[in-house]
């Protein structure tokens, strides 16, 4: 067989294989369309027959017909599947033969020829290619750019309220909806006895000595918001009633010892750590904890130290999927909770604010937008009457918010032109009206708790403001390291006095008995006359203070960073009443109730008392 024969053979094979491929692919295509167009198992005939069977369920002949058709349909289905499979193998084989034949054909036909100057003129080619590249590049960019004009950002058009309204409207109007048990929470908070649980699984039939179950009698009255006296009787927020660091509880032990357990009534371990301080209402103590994955609020029986309930702050609309980055010494659970005896409110570094009733039922939750805060959000919550105040001074937008305690809706929102802050708001009763007082770089300012209107503002702070202001003796005290300590009259916004000898970095000042106390992070405790600002005494010995000084039982309590507690008399001369060691690093502020002091160190909660 010579070359030309081979060529002819190859070309013939190629033609045959090509026709074969074409036919097979055509058949496959037909099969494909047949499969997609009609589903033999759901044919109309079948449907109508089944419908008929529904009407005449005993028709045996009809049943036979259905079964027959069913069998046919199934057969057809599997046959066509077989066809597809076999067809694709045939096609592959045909294509292989076709390709081989063509290759042989062309390799036999082609001869090595000396190419003459078929080469393009390089210079010309390059110039042409530059033109095309330019055109192509510009074309791609312009086309994409033009396409962007046809696209509209619908995400921006979305507002949460719209859907809320729609959901409410969708409820059936003919049905009266009654909330069961919404009125019981208030009763629980007030008349709370020690909460014993029914001992689980005692096998005895007659459990006569078993403790009574937790029963709450329902009261029909609407929940009453606490008045100032009730707030003072409890420890509802960061640094106690109104955030001023003064508690009226008595019989607080001045000495105890952590390592040996002296005067330590109980120690409880919390599931997760956090830098927030305990708050107390009745017999319930609340703290929160967080890590990057989850955030939780804990309710603890303050008599036994038992965790009554743990609730996760999850599934909050708008909450970020990944927690914002925070520094280790702030974390996501730095802000202290607030409770009004009806509900407990918590805010986390994710911007989630959540409210539970005293039984741990979630009342509302929302996200205020993830705070842009390079250490982590740390401003605690405080409330008065039906409003919960949130100081939301972040790197991106600063504002003071008042939320409705029952629903979480924003009552008012006051934008502030200040810088970021880590201080917490306090409340001050100025001339019978409550003001929310905030300390930030560069101003200290007071806002009407009712309307959110700014009443006064004083410049003078700078840098990263950590200490919260304090109110007492009719004056507001605010301080920040590298800035100043100033006393401001909140009635007119005038600075009464200023001093900058000792300045606090983290711990907030406290006012009592005509004196103001200041604790610095480098370990100096100072006492000033509140009215004049003259220094009365100082104590310079200690590793430093992060925990704020607090007043209870007419004494000044302060924990240093090593967990050593010093108790001073509230006198114009230095008088140390006692010194104790907890044996744990403390940076939170203690809470007081009924002869007991509660302090948190990371995941451990101590109850100190006799």
């Amino acid at each position: 067989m010579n070359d030309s024969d081979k060529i002819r053979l190859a070309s013939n094979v190629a033609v045959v294989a090509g026709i074969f491929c074409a036919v097979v692919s055509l058949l496959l295509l037909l099969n494909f369309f047949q499969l997609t167009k009609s589903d033999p198992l759901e044919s109309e005939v079948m449907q109508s027959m089944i419908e008929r069977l529904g009407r005449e369920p005993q028709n045996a002949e009809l049943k036979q017909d259905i079964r027959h058709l069913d069998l046919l349909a199934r057969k057809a289905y599997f046959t066509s599947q077989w066809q597809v499979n076999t067809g694709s193998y045939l096609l592959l084989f045909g294509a292989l033969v076709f390709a081989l034949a063509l290759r042989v054909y062309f390799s036999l036909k082609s001869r090595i020829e000396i190419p003459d100057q078929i080469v393009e003129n390089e210079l010309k080619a390059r110039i042409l290619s530059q033109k095309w590249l330019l055109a192509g590049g510009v074309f791609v960019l312009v086309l994409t750019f033009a396409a962007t004009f046809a696209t509209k950002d619908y995400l921006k058009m979305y507002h949460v309220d719209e859907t809320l309204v729609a959901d409410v409207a969708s409820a059936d109007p003919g049905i009266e909806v009654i909330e069961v048990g919404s009125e019981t929470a208030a009763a629980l908070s007030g008349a709370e006895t020690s909460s014993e649980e029914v001992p689980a699984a005692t096998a005895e039939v007659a459990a006569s000595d078993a403790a009574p179950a937790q029963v709450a009698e329902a009261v029909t009255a609407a929940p009453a918001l606490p008045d100032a006296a009730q707030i003072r009787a409890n420890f509802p927020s960061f640094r106690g009633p109104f955030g001023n660091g003064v508690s009226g509880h008595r019989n607080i032990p001045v000495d105890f010892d952590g390592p040996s357990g002296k005067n330590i009534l109980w120690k409880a371990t919390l599931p997760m750590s956090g830098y927030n301080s305990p708050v107390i209402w009745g017999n319930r103590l609340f703290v929160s904890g967080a890590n990057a994955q989850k955030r939780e609020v804990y309710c603890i029986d303050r008599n036994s130290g038992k965790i009554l309930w743990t609730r996760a702050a999850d599934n909050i609309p708008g909450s970020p999927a990944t927690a914002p980055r925070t520094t280790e010494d702030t974390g996501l659970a730095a802000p202290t909770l607030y409770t009004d005896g009806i509900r407990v409110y918590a805010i986390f570094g994710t911007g989630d604010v959540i409210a539970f009733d005293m039984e741990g039922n979630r009342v509302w939750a929302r996200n205020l937008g993830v705070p842009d805060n390079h250490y982590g959000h740390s401003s605690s919550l405080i409330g008065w009457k039906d409003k919960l105040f949130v100081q939301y001074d972040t790197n991106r937008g600063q504002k003071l918010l008042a939320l409705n305690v029952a629903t979480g809706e924003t009552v008012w929102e006051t934008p502030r032109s200040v810088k970021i802050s880590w201080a917490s708001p306090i409340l001050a009763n100025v001339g019978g009206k409550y003001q929310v007082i905030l300390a930030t770089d560069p101003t200290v300012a007071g806002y009407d708790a009712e309307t959110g209107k700014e009443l006064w503002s004083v410049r003078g702070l700078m840098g990263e403001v950590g200490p919260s202001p304090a109110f007492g003796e009719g004056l507001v005290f605010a301080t920040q390291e590298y800035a100043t300590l100033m006393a401001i009259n909140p009635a007119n916004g005038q600075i009464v006095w200023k001093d900058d000898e000792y300045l606090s970095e983290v711990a907030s000042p406290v006012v009592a008995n005509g004196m103001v106390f200041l604790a610095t992070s480098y370990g100096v405790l100072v006492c000033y006359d509140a009215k004049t600002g003259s220094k009365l005494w100082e104590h310079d010995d200690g590793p430093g203070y992060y925990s704020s000084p607090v007043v209870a039982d007419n004494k000044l309590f302060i924990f240093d960073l090593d967990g050593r507690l010093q108790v001073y008399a509230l006198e114009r001369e230095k008088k140390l009443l006692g010194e104790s060691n907890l044996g744990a690093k403390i940076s939170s502020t203690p809470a007081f109730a009924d002869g007991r002091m509660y302090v948190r160190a990371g995941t451990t909660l101590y109850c100190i008392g006799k």
Partner: protein
Amino acid sequence: MMNKKGIYIFLIILAVIIVAVIAGDFARNRPGKRPSNPFEYNMGDLKKVDPEQIIYRETRNFKLKMEEPAGMTIFNDQIYVTGDQLLQVITTEGRLVREISLPFKPLTVEVNTSRIFVSARESIHVYDHDGNPLAEWTGFTGNSYLSGIATYEGNVFIADAARRRVYRFTEDGEKELEFEGKVSDDALHGFIVPSGCFDLAINEFGDLWVANPGKHALENYTFNGILRGYWTSQFSDVKGFTGCCNPAFFTFLPGGNMITSEKGILRIKEYKPSGEFVGVVAEPSRFMEDGKVSDVASDSQGRVYAADPDKKSIRVFEKI
């Protein structure tokens, strides 16, 4: 040989095809643009109910502070509802009377004049009406699932879904009898309970009825466990029961008519004690898609209450 121009045209056509296929697929294959399901199991027809057949209307909803209501009963016109780790007593006006926290996860509840019986998976907890625990009956096997309780004059009947039998206890927790519903002449196979739904109830005349969900039957037994009569639903439409485990719950109206609650296609219906279909209380469209089945109870006014776990509320239906 092939013409060069032909090759170029061929190539251009191919390029267009490639671009068209990629762009077309990319643009078309988007959520909401995809074809609907050719294999869909369309249960819509089954869920259709003739409006004529609906003889009740929903009048009130009691929103519960409970994640998942499990069991419910009505005694003295007070609603006893269990769920989470709670037992709540609610008036028929929706006011919370009492809340008892339970140290276990409750299944169902039954109340008589002196006691409240709450079942857990494998035990019965007895409380007095103030919520004080009186006793705990633990003599059940580890393989029990106590899904129903009924009381009558000192007798406590307990349905065990897992072991497929009914126990009779005295009020003081003494077990007197257990029966599997098997009859000698093999008229029925005994209780067939494919899932956790196995309910029983006693009407005002003292007749014990037990649901046999595997047979779509309601069976009447003597207190000694002898089958007295039964009925099954023979219909494939709304008049009968569908699925594998229905009726999941049932209760009696004053006068003896039965209210049944079904899973799968969620619906509540009324039957005469003879098994004759009366009408629909709540049609499937009232419930959430793929929702959970509701326990049912009725009060002295003949109102029907359904504890809907999906809506976390007790739904009240009144006869039109």
